[in-house]
């Protein structure tokens, strides 16, 4: 079935380093991709999105890369801070507006 998978369930980085979180998706009909951050006891929070007609999009300290050939999505966080510690989910969406979430990567930032 349709699913969004993450390569690593956990990632630990040193404060100040760059983080890269990867995600694989399976539905070739997906045309919209979103990264969310979820802190303990909170709902997912939108970080950045990208549409299928783009390969790269940058935000503040975050960059999303999309490789449609291999159905791969990544989130890069520059100069990772302790406040970045959370669970990160990628989600894929078709033009019908239905989003499918992966199981998340837990990012831990060590001081």
């Amino acid at each position, binding site marked *: 079935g349709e699913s969004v998978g993450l390569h690593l369930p956990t990632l630990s980085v040193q404060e100040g380093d760059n983080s890269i979180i990867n995600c694989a998706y399976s539905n070739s009909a997906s045309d*919209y991709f979103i990264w969310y951050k979820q802190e303990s006891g909170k*709902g*997912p929070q939108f970080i950045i*999105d990208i*549409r299928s007609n783009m390969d790269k999009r940058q935000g503040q300290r975050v960059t999303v890369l999309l490789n449609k050939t291999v159905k791969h999505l990544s989130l890069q966080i520059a100069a990772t801070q302790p406040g970045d510690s959370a669970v990160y989910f990628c989600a894929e*969406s078709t*033009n019908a*507006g*239905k989003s499918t*979430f992966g199981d998340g990567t837990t990012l831990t930032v060590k001081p």
Partner: protein
Amino acid sequence: EAGVAQSPRYKIIEKRQSVAFWCNPISGHATLYWYQQILGQGPKLLIQFQNNGVVDDSQLPKDRFSAERLKGVDSTLKIQPAKLEDSAVYLCASSGQGASSNQPQHFGDGTRLSIL
């Protein structure tokens, strides 16, 4: 702008009892979603509304779960009767565009349901 409001924040019930959750989306958002998030997993879509109509309820266990959005604004999700495997966080989200126009979803903080 005010975010997505959900209540209650926590609920503990015994199996076979019923429970209801309430969600008030961001003002003006036409699309409303209910998700179930089991511990350690990503959110799973239960039902999607566009205004007061159902767009997708393919993963809603309709023998025990029901949801409504009668006036196209706030929504309730009900479970009756509850089973042990329903223990999860129930998240509500809304987005500003139509069902066929992708926009990021805005989530509430969820209701954590524990079934004893």
